[in-house]
Structure formats: structure tokens, C-alpha cells
């Protein structure tokens, strides 16, 4: 699950960077040459893979922990490649049995919890995979990532239920569909064919953890990191700064030697075949406000940054090139579409707004996307017509939602049909929001648009965790939200409308439509095919007609990197790409 603040996401993405002085004006640094200096925009909730349910924690977790699979760094469309696994799984003819061989000789990082081997990290074996997946299912772990496995593996749901009932978890109790066949082989039995299952095995939630460390640290495991990954956590201050060092026992993993067309020319293959990671040290600083982050980048203290909306004109010209100021610095602009969608959610569980489709359609029609794009995204986004972003099968570029073509007259007409002519009789809409300056400006804009058809809006402001809690408890009639893809399949967006995923699950609008559910369940059993794409298109249109969301925008990601940062390529899905990045100290002088 990857819910994001719509505003923050723009600033988000992976943000990379490097420090020390570039014209001798900044602070002195003791960091070795080639240290990466990167930025994060939210506090980190912890280093436990089972809790890594937002982008920021996910990024940190995947530096230290690894999952069985990962995405190819350079190839597009996104492609699953082995990580801890030795190869892609062997899947039986009925699509239900996955046999996964894991790499041999992979070591956990040295840690005090490995008492048997006097603090030396031991080898990763198939039992660790079984343990880590069971741990995600363990009710005591209280993982927000259980949905990744829920209902999918034979016997795992029963094992979870038995643990809940017994009050203690017995990891030695067998799960029929999840077992280690030998030291390096895991076999997973699925309840039914599922084409999205493998994506779950690439998410931070399924990062492989050693049982010794989990048991030794107990609750404190959240603040420790003992994985097999390329970096070791050396300094942990989740509200301000995280420092990582190269993991000396990291296995031989090399930079990809193939990419998509054009990567060669961009120099993205210059390091092909070289051992990862490149950086000896990695410093992540947390910038909650965008201005300090921007200024640090401008002084050369960060290797990469996103562009805050208010600095956009300083960096990018109207013709989408870099400004002279930026060219002089030698920075590089990276532009790529994000697999995401922002939306204003209607709470379908609300008796007023949830029961009145015409009312929702009226509000949707009254919300003009054009100024929204200009004022808040510097036109770095396109108006969304449906829930599926461009770049995924199921997105139809020709489709125009009838309720996203701004028209005050039509909105008033719909509002009158809904039973509230001129907004009369409608109580002010209870809108939940987070407290940030940009959110407030967006809310003012929404309020203004609704006032034009006579609808009043009342705001309830929360902090980010409170806001999430309010939504999970179905409080409020509307709120703004965004969803970024967990994996490159439109199913990840359509599951947001599946009735079994309603709050506290990811279906925050609490939309429920038996016909939609039927199509959704059918689509799960289909491989990527025109038939499945047609189903996706149909489901998306059902959602548009029922209007549980006012579709917002699909964003374009704009990032800047310093001239000395090599191998940067925007990746929508893969977390923890820092292992591929390299700083050229010669260019920093």
C-alpha cells in the first residue's frame, strides 16, 4: 500500500543528493569522496519491512533489506528481475505452484544478534523466506502489508487465524502452501492463479529478515536494520538524518548491462557489469519543508532534488528546458510521467453524499482542472479522466469523463436534479484535510469552485497520521488523496474500488458495486491480454460513472541532478535505487 499526500508526492519520488562544497562556500565535510547525499521529505516511521507502507520508509527499508525480486533499473516498461531469487519462479501449468530457487552464499549483515556465529552474519536460506512471509501474516506483527499475501497462499490465512485464536504464534506450525523444499528452494502454493502475486514479492513488505534479529530486538526491531542489502545502517535519527555505509559482505551484484533505447547515449550503461553499490557512504537528510531542500541543492549539498512549485520558474523555462541559471550549474533535468493519480474522494459510506450519484457528478463537474494544473503543478501534470494513469494497460487516451468537463451550468443542472437546486438544503460538506500550506491553498481553491454552484465546504484539518486514521474510520464526507503504483499493473488502481478492500483497507471511498467486484475478480485470473485490458477499461468507466472520486491529475515527475551524479534514471516503482548511483568526485571540484 502506498498512500501519499497529493502535494507531497510531487516533491517526493526518490530524491538524491550529495554534499560538501562545490565552490568552496559551503560547509566542510569529512565524508569520503563519492558519498551520496540524498533527501527525504517525510519522517521515517521505522526500518521494519513489515511496516514499510509509505514511500519514504519503503525507500529506506530497501537499502538494507532485499526482496526475492526487484525491477530492472533501466528497462521500460518495468520488468521483474531476480534479486535474492536466483531466477524467475518456475510456475506450474495451472499457475498455482511457484518454485523459487534462491542465490547461494548470500550473507546477512554482521550484527550482535547473531550469537551462534559470534556476531558474524550467517547465510540466507530458504527457511528465512518462509519465516519472513509468515511474519507478515503473524497477527502480532500488525503489518499494514498483510493484504499482499491475504487470501493468496494455501493455508496461510488459516495459520494466521489460528495464531489470532491461540494468542501466540507458532512459527513451526506448517503452512501447506509455503515451505522450504531444500536449503535453497522455496515452494509457494497459491489458492488460485494470480498474475499480480509476483509483484508482491518485489515490495518492501516482503523484504527478508533474519529471525535472530527479530527475536533479539523485539519491539525495537523497528529501529534496527539487519538485512542482506547493499547498505548497512550506521546512524539512525528517523526525524532528521539516516546514514548508511557500504555493506562489506554484500554479494556480487552488478550494474545492468542492458537498458532501453537511448540509455547508452545518456551514459547510463557506462558502468555496466561493475560491482554494486558504488557509494561508500549514503547520507539521507529529511527536509520537511521544500525550501531548505532546494537551497541545499543549489549550494551543491544535495545530489538530486525535486522541484518545488514555487521554484519551478527558477529552474525550468516555459519551453520545458533548463534556465540559464541551471545550465550554468551543469545540472540535469529528468522528466518522466508518474504512475499515479490524485483524487478528491467521496465517502460512499456517508448517508448524504454516498447515496446521491447526481450530487457527486455535480460536484465533479464543478471542479475545474485547468487552473489546478497551472497553480499547483506548473502544468507538470495532466487532468485525469479515470483512475488508471497513462503508461498502464487499461488507460484510454481518447476517453473523456463526462463529469470532468468543467461547466458551471451543467453542474448546477445536475445539482438541481440531485435535489439541491442552487445548493439549497445541502449542509456544508465536511472535508478532511492535512495541515500544510499547499493543502490549504488547494482547499481554498476547491471551496471557491464549489461556492460557484452554491455548495459550502467546511474543512477539518488533521496531521498526516490523524488524517489516515480519520479516513480509516470513515469520518468526513470528502478528502483529497493520491495513489502511486506499487507495481506496473492497472489492477493496483482498480483494487481501490473492490468492495472487500473498503476501509481500513485501501478502498478509502468505500465504493461497493457487485458488478464491479465480479469483473475485478474475473480480471485477477487473466494474464495480460486484450481481454483483460478490455475489462480494465470497462471497470474504469464504471467508476467514472458512479463517481466515488473526483478525478484529479496524473503527475509528471520533474527532478534535477547535479552534474557529478551518474547513473540516475527515474524509477516509479523500485525502492532504494541508491545502489546504482555514483558520484564522480572529479566533477565536484
Amino acid at each position, binding site marked *: 500500500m502506498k498512500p501519499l499526500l497529493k502535494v507531497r508526492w510531487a516533491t517526493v519520488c526518490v530524491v538524491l543528493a550529495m554534499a560538501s562544497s562545490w565552490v568552496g562556500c559551503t560547509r566542510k565535510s569529512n565524508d569520503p569522496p563519492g558519498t551520496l547525499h540524498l533527501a527525504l521529505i517525510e519522517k521515517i516511521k521505522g526500518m521494519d519491512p513489515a511496516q514499510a507502507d509509505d514511500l519514504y520508509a519503503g525507500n529506506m527499508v530497501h537499502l538494507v533489506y532485499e526482496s526475492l525480486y526487484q525491477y530492472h533499473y533501466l528497462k521500460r516498461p518495468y520488468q521483474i528481475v531476480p534479486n535474492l531469487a536466483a531466477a524467475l519462479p518456475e510456475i506450474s501449468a495451472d499457475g498455482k505452484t511457484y518454485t523459487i530457487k534462491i542465490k547461494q552464499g548470500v550473507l546477512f549483515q554482521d550484527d550482535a544478534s547473531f550469537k551462534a556465529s559470534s556476531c558474524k552474519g550467517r547465510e540466507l536460506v530458504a527457511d528465512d523466506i518462509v519465516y519472513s512471509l509468515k511474519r507478515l501474516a503473524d497477527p502480532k506483527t500488525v503489518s499494514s502489508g498483510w493484504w499482499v499475501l491475504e487470501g493468496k497462499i494455501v493455508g496461510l490465512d488459516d495459520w494466521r487465524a489460528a495464531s489470532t485464536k491461540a494468542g501466540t504464534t507458532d512459527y513451526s506450525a506448517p503452512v501447506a502452501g509455503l515451505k522450504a523444499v531444500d536449503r535453497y528452494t522455496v515452494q509457494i502454493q497459491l489458492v488460485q492463479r494470480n498474475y499480480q502475486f509476483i509483484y508482491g514479492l518485489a515490495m518492501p513488505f516482503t523484504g527478508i529478515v533474519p529471525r535472530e534479529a527479530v527475536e533479539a530486538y523485539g519491539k525495537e526491531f523497528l529501529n534496527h536494520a539487519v538485512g542482506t542489502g547493499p547498505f548497512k545502517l550506521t546512524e539512525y535519527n528517523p526525524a532528521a538524518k539516516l546514514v548508511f555505509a557500504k555493506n562489506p559482505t554484500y554479494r556480487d551484484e552488478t550494474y545492468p548491462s542492458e537498458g532501453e533505447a537511448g540509455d547508452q547515449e545518456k551514459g547510463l550503461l557506462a558502468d555496466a557489469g561493475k560491482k554494486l553499490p558504488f557509494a561508500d557512504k549514503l547520507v539521507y537528510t529529511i527536509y520537511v519543508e521544500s*525550501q531548505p531542500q*532546494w537551497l541545499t541543492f543549489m549550494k551543491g549539498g544535495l545530489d538530486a532534488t525535486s522541484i518545488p512549485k*514555487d521554484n519551478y520558474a527558477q529552474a525550468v523555462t516555459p519551453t520545458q528546458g533548463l534556465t540559464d541559471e541551471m545550465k550554468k550549474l551543469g545540472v540535469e533535468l529528468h522528466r518522466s510521467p508518474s504512475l499515479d493519480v490524485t483524487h478528491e474522494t467521496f465517502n460512499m459510506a456517508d448517508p448524504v453524499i454516498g447515496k446521491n450519484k447526481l450530487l457527486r457528478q455535480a460536484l465533479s463537474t464543478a471542479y475545474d482542472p485547468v487552473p489546478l494544473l497551472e*497553480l499547483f503543478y506548473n502544468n507538470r501534470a495532466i487532468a485525469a479522466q479515470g483512475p488508471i494513469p497513462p503508461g498502464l494497460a487499461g488507460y484510454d487516451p481518447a476517453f473523456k469523463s463526462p463529469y470532468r468537463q468543467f461547466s458551471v451550468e451543467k453542474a448546477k443542472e445536475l445539482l438541481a436534479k440531485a435535489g439541491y437546486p442552487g445548493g439549497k438544503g445541502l449542509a456544508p460538506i465536511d472535508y478532511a484535510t492535512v495541515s*500544510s500550506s499547499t493543502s*490549504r491553498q488547494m482547499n481554498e481553491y476547491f*471551496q471557491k469552485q464549489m461556492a460557484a454552484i452554491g455548495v459550502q465546504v467546511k474543512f477539518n*484539518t488533521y496531521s498526516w497520521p490523524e488524517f489516515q486514521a480519520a479516513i480509516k474510520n470513515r469520518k468526513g464526507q470528502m478528502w483529497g488523496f493520491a495513489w502511486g503504483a506499487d507495481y506496473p499493473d492497472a489492477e493496483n488502481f482498480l483494487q481501490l474500488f473492490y468492495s472487500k478492500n473498503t476501509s481500513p483497507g485501501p478502498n478509502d471511498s468505500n465504493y461497493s458495486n457487485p458488478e464491479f467486484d465480479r469483473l475485478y475478480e474475473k480480471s485477477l485470473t487473466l494474464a495480460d491480454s486484450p481481454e483483460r485490458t478490455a475489462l480494465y477499461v470497462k471497470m474504469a468507466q464504471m467508476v467514472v460513472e458512479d463517481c466515488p472520486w473526483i478525478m484529479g491529475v496524473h503527475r509528471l515527475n520533474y527532478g534535477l541532478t547535479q552534474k557529478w551524479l551518474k547513473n540516475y534514471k527515474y524509477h516509479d516503482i523500485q525502492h532504494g535505487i541508491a545502489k546504482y548511483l555514483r558520484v564522480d568526485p572529479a566533477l565536484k571540484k
Partner: protein
Amino acid sequence: MTSGEAGGGMAVLATSPVESGVAKNEPKGRSLWADAVRRFRKDRMAVACLAVIAFYAVIAILARFELIASPWDTVIGGAYDPPSLQSLAHSFGTDIFGRSVFYKVIHGTRIAMSVGLVASLIAIPIGVTLGALAGYFGGWIDEAIVWFYTTLSSIPNIMLLIAITFVMGKGMGAIYVALGVTSWIGLCRVIRGEFIKHKSRDYVVAASSLGASHGSRIFKHILPNVSHFVIINLSMQFMGAIKAEVILSFLGLGVQGQPSWGVMIDDAKLELARGVWWQLAGATVAMFFVVLAFNIVGDALRDALDPKIK
């Protein structure tokens, strides 16, 4: 902040307590109030500042009844038009939605003044009543009240404000109450101290021997003699509330959907990066003059009214 903290060692000074009857019998003497007015008027700066406050008040009232700068939320230009002389509305430029910053400053004045007034009207009765009860009765009542306000004041003010706005939800009502119920402590201390001092004075003893009830002694006899502290406190209270409203709104806890100086400064936090300085300038200049004026008037009032400083 508060002037003349209670319990100062200066016992009884020459000024006699004001009793309306007494004043009548001495045609040549001036009452404390008349004397204060005379002294206040000699302070030209203070008079000028009082005029500034009056000006703000008039602006606020006119804006309240939508006689000027109305409506504030009409779009008069593009986003972030710089200040220009083409009309009064454009004189401070426009904001992100193309609305007049000048109008927002005017309506921000309305919000600020109303917050100052209402918060003071809530705080003063609480402070005076509790202070009077504690000072007059002493004993366990005093201890309870002192314990209560000491505890309350040990909580950092901003925390308390945030907590109250979270409980009450957002909006003007919450701000009024939050500021009102957190800002009476200073006044309460002063009034308590004065009551302790006054309750054993001759005129109170005399009143009591004539059979005046507690209520009559508190409200009819002592209170008029300490009421100048309320006036002095009012000006400080007012200014404190204006500042607090700006801070709360800046933090996103204040006024929703209405122009406020704090919200404008919060906007400016983002906009300064793109060179938009006029919202910050408009809000801070407006705030600067009214806060300064209240400060100077507050000082002058203390000089004029406090018999200890003559």
C-alpha cells in the same frame, strides 16, 4: 507583560481610594479617571497611537458590514500580479488566485480586531472574577484558584492553544475561546494581589462595619478601585490575541477560508521563493502598526492610571 505585578512592597500611597461620593464633596480635586485622561492627553505619541487603533477599529467595522473592500474574494487579475497603481485594489498586488492582497489585508484587520476584542471579553471576566474571589476570600478558595492558574500557566501557551483548537475544531469560535481561556492568568494575578491589598483598607473595613455584604464589598467598593488594571491589561490582552491569531493561522490552526494576516504570511513562506513579497509586506506592515500602537497606548495607560507611577 502585565503591569504592576501584585504584592509590591509599596504599601499605601497618597492617592485615596475613589468613592464617587467623596469626589463630589471636593469640587477642586480631580478624580483618578479625570486625572488619568489629563495625563494621557499630554502624551502626544499615545494619543496618536490611540488614533491609529481607532482607525483600525473603524476599518474593521466597515469591513465587517461589507462597506469597504467587498467582496474580498473576487478575482481582479492574474495569479501573483505585482503591486500597481491602476486601482486601490491592485495597490498591494494579487495572490495565487488573483485576488486583491489589499482587500485581504483589510479583511485581515477585521479578523484580527474581532479576535482581539472577543478574546479580551472572554478573558477579562474570568481573570477579574477569579482574581477577586481569590484575593478577597483567601484561604482554600485562594489556594484552589492559585493552584489552578499556576498549573495552567505551566503548560506552554502555544501547546494549550493547539490542544483547544484540536478539540473544538477549526474556525473563529475556537480561536476566540482558545485565546480567551488561555490569556486571563496575568490579569487574575494582578487583581488578586490588589484585592489582598485593598480588602483590609479603611474604606472596605468601614463598608463592612456598615453591613455591606461580601458581594457589595467586592463589586461595589473594591472593584472600582482596581478597575484601572483592567483597562491597562485590556490593551496588552488585545495585542497578545492579535499576535496569537496570526501565529495560529500561520501554523494552519487558525482561521479557515477567510483572509487572515497569519494565513497570508503562511502563503508568503512558499511564495517568497518566486519573488512574491507583497503578501508578506501587506500583512506584516498592517500588523506592525497595530501591535506597536497597542504597546505604546498600553504603556501610556499604565503611566496615566497607575497611581504608583506618577
